[in-house]
């Protein structure tokens, strides 16, 4: 049997909700796919669209942007900016030819360890089905002498 | 030295593997036993079966195992989320595979296997009940297929309900067609009675037939068919939109495609919630709306109704098993109905109709009427009622 594809998922998340939610999943010893790697920022509002694009370009197969629920931001409303940027970033990435399911925005609070697990697993499975993104080789300059 | 029982964890695991995996969540509070309606008429300790099954101790396979009518009351109330009916089903499956299930059930499963129905009816005559009504066969232009429950197709009492249904559907101009008689029992009772393999055969055969015809939407008269098609067939790859007659009739009356105009002459009516329609599929209001739409009909309620409704005792294969009169839930309920002044008991399930007709006979209540809501509506709609 062919070895199954293990997607690489980047999680760009805030310190207070999603990172803490992932911590809670840990302290509760919940189990999830080892494909995700968290990159912590203080607020999801810190997540520059270029981070998402860099991750995809570098070799991530999927990116999860995650932060506090819209009304629960540790920084009052930093996550509102994330919420506003996401739809247009999502559309633009689709224009580039990146499947919509590869990039996802989720609100996961510090108490939602289970939700983190669910999303991490879902994301891994969805992206596994989509296959490798392999951006660099799929966009490499080809027929140049 | 005495023979100490010791846990057989393999047995417990086997039960878990055949669908009873929530078994281990039980913390032995006894809510299930206390909730189970059987305890109104006899002792039945659901918890005990779960407890024995957790440890694989002998006794879980005892006679009590076959009592459960799969009414789901305990599952709704279980504080731990144990799918008790699944555990019971799983144990029954194991026993059935070992060939030690009760004889009466064996005969029923045998008939289903041979004839495609539990009533030893001729499989070629499945549509005989509807012939006189000249309903059109299902074509790709039909919106719905009418799937008749075996009981409505073969049981003399319930055939009347099926006929009333067809008349109403025609009167309302519903775009439906009859299946060609190749359909088989949906398999609900078969599965609940432990015939998992047979259920798989039935569902595979039905799905193949329905898909070949291009059926997308189905009308059913039995809540058991409703539940099985809606909740169990999808796992087997069969996905259909299923609607029960009571829900459909409520819609037709709301959209004024049917007008119940004749005044009801059957006295006070008490509605009995079929477990598979109510608790299992949350259809509580539609049948009540139907009855309330009938002019002159006074609707009564059992003390325990809707999600707390007491089962008729006919599900999970019980319809075909013998129950002493003093232990029949339908008898108990009918007494309650009479006591509150009802002269008609309405319900919406062929099993319930059968169980209550039997209870009526047992109690010698000649003037009392047991009816499916479909029949009551058919009586009330001018175009349908034979003059």
């Amino acid at each position, binding site marked *: 049997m062919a070895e199954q594809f293990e997607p690489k998922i*980047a999680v760009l998340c805030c310190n207070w909700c999603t990172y803490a939610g992932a911590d809670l999943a840990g302290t509760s010893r*919940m189990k999830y796919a080892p494909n995700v790697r968290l990159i912590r920022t203080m607020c999801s509002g810190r997540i520059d669209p270029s981070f998402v694009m860099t991750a995809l370009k570098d070799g991530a197969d999927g990116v999860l942007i995650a932060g506090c629920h819209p009304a629960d931001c540790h920084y009052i409303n930093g996550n509102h900016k994330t919420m506003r940027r996401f739809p247009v970033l999502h559309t633009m990435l689709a224009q580039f030819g990146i499947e919509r399911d590869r990039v996802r925005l989720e609100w996961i609070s510090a108490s939602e360890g289970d939700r983190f697990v669910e999303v991490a697993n879902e994301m891994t499975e969805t992206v596994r089905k989509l296959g490798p993104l392999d951006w660099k080789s799929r966009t490499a300059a080809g027929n140049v002498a | 030295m005495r023979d100490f029982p010791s846990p057989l964890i393999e047995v417990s695991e086997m039960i878990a593997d055949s669908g009873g995996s929530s078994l281990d969540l039980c913390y032995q509070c006894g809510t299930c036993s206390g909730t189970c309606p059987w305890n109104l008429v006899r002792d039945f300790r659901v918890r005990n079966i779960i407890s024995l099954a957790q440890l694989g101790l002998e006794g879980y396979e005892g006679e009590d195992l076959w009592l459960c009518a799969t009414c789901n009351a305990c599952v709704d109330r279980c504080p731990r989320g144990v799918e008790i009916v699944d555990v019971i089903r799983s144990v029954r499956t194991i026993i059935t595979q070992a060939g030690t299930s009760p004889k009466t059930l064996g005969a029923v499963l045998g008939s289903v296997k041979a004839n495609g129905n539990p009533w030893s009816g001729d499989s070629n005559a499945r549509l005989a009940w509807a012939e006189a009504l000249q309903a059109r066969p299902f074509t790709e232009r039909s919106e719905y297929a009418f799937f008749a429950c075996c009981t409505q197709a073969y049981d003399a009492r319930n055939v009347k309900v099926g006929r009333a249904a067809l008349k109403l559907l025609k009167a309302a101009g519903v775009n439906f067609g009859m299946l060609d008689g190749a359909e088989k029992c949906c398999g609900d009772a078969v599965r609940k009675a432990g015939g998992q393999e047979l259920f798989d055969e039935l569902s595979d055969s039905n799905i193949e037939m329905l898909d070949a015809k291009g059926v997308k939407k189905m009308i059913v008269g039995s809540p058991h068919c409703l539940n099985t098609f809606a909740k169990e067939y999808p796992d087997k790859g069969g996905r259909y939109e299923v609607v029960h007659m009571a829900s459909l009739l409520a819609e037709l009356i709301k959209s004024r495609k049917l007008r119940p105009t004749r005044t009801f002459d059957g006295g006070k009516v008490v509605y009995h919630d079929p477990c598979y329609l109510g608790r299992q599929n949350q259809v509580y209001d539609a049948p009540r709306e139907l009855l309330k739409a009938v002019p002159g009909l006074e609707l009564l309620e059992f003390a325990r109704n809707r999600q707390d409704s007491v089962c008729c005792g006919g599900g999970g294969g019980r319809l075909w098993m013998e129950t002493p009169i003093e232990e029949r839930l339908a008898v108990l309920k009918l007494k309650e109905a009479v006591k509150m002044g009802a002269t008609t008991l309405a319900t919406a399930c062929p099993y319930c109709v059968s169980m209550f007709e039997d209870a009526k006979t047992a109690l010698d209540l000649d003037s009392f009427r047991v009816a499916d809501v479909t029949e009551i509506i058919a009586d009330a709609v001018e175009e349908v009622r034979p003059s």
Partner: protein
Amino acid sequence: MKNDDPRIGVFVCHCGTNIAGIVNVDSVAAAARTMPFVVHAEEYKFMCSDPGQALVRDAILKHRLNRVIVAACSPRMHEPTFRKATALAGLNPYLFEMANIREHCSWVHTDKVAATEKAIDLVKSAVAKARYLEPLESRYVNVEPKVLIVGGGVAGIQAALDIANGGTKVVLVERQQSIGGRMAQLDKTFPTLDCSACILTPKMVQAAQHPNIELMTYSEIEEVKGYVGNFTVRIRRKATFIDPKVCTACGVCIDKCPWKATSSFEEGLSKRKAVYRLFPQAVPGIPVVDKDACKYFENGKCKACEKFCEPHAFRWDDQDKIVEEKVGAIIVATGYDLIDPKLPSQYGYGKLKNVITGIEFERINNATGPTAGKIVTKEGKEPESVAILHCIGSRDRNHCEYCSRVCCMYALKFAHLIKEKTKATVYNFYIDMRCFGKGYEEFYHRLLEEGVKFIRGKAAYVTDQALTDAEQGKLIISAEATTLGKTLRVPVDMVILANAMTPQKDAADVARKFGIGRSPDGFFLEKHPKLEPVSTATDGVYLAGTCQGPKDIPDTVAQGAAAASVAMSLIQRGTVEVEAATAGVIDDLCSGCKICQDVCPYSAIGYEVDKRIAEINASLCKGCGTCAATCPSSAIVAKHFNDQQILAQIHALYAQEG
């Protein structure tokens, strides 16, 4: 120190077997040694222990490290510990970075190979970031020497008294018109059976009279702004229509008022007047006018109360007032609610009139309650038998999954009180008896001696549908006596539901106002379940009592005192460190587009008119970094989370080798 020659040290923690059991720590350390700029890597059993921290300090000196990485637990747990260790070796604490290989790795994965690979990745990411770390200066601000306590139940009162006695000012805000909370509703307390009011009222009075406590009853928090040490709180003081400075609390107005409304304090079991005191021993004792019940507000007539008020205390034009308070710390002690007893519908609450809740029984049994302390059914008769049903809604996945902790004990207390006052047979239907506190098991034993009947089985339903003559006119409980394996029907005259404690209905709102998290059960989330039980995710905001989870009076009081001590230690310290990792503007790149000004949640960004560029007020900036992500000119740098650092992490994790 120069940024261009990083010397990175990596320390991999075993955390006993917590990490080492899944992650091959040797491989992680070995891999770290091959990473760019890493000059030293080692692993150790417990990095957070003293020897572990010493290891870091020694290695910094020995290997001239200028960046430190500890791969261990969550930075939310031990980042401060290792920053301190780093600082002790003379290195700026912000040159420390943590890799979370426990919560995010060993605890959540089972495949050892994959977990080790991930741990190496996480270290790689930390190393990549560390290379670009820059030293930051810690800053301190003064702490406002005043504490806000929200909720005047026993937890809030205890905290207020402890803090006030320590010499610090307290503002105690209570939504009701009197402090006292739930405890004021109770009759006796288990297991000692002291009278609840007798032990609570002196404390209430003490709080009201304490020179360091300002009581704000009939008041609610509107808004909380600021940060640890410097909160600004806006409090709505609801209109009472009575001038508290003039009113003598004589109570004549209450007597004369002809209008009535349902008493919430009496759990709806009796009526109170439109001008009323919450309960006779209310503190403060000054009544308030219930605008909804008072006819004057409806048709402009009546004012019967005012006619008899000698001091002329009525102020019909009274309005809600907003007051602002500056405080250094906040204790949230907003208490609990009870599950709607109608939700588990099988017990017939609301349909069967002699099915009552525990808190209703407290009032019935209370000498000041609706029956003057007589235990009677709704028909006014003494019950011959009473059933107390445990775990109504609690320990139940259909409602509240958790154990409410106090019900077993108050059920025992009720049983005792019924036995004491009536001849009734008392049944307890229970799943497990949880008598964990001091003197609790002994109390259980006492109840067994008193002849209370214990049936081990959860009540399945309550009905009035008799099957036998003996059941006629009774409430019948259906349950299995699981120890016997027999299903029973027990006829009784009164059923008391021990219904679950739940979070307050507005808990979500309150949590948001104060920046507190909530656990899946809906109660407020403490910072650490064991080691920081009264702290929250927001520095300077603490928890006390049942808003954090179900608990009995001793635990509630203890937590009130604990919250007081933590708040006091903050006040005593006098200063707090504030965010060093703020945002900064690169003047040369800023074009003054002002876009950043809109996105800053703290209005920390201003506009320097002369230079026509943005300017960040570091004392207002909390370091969220939203402006840095927004700035279209890349002219704002989020310190400690700058583009270079984060992109380095991304490259380290995802860029192909070479």
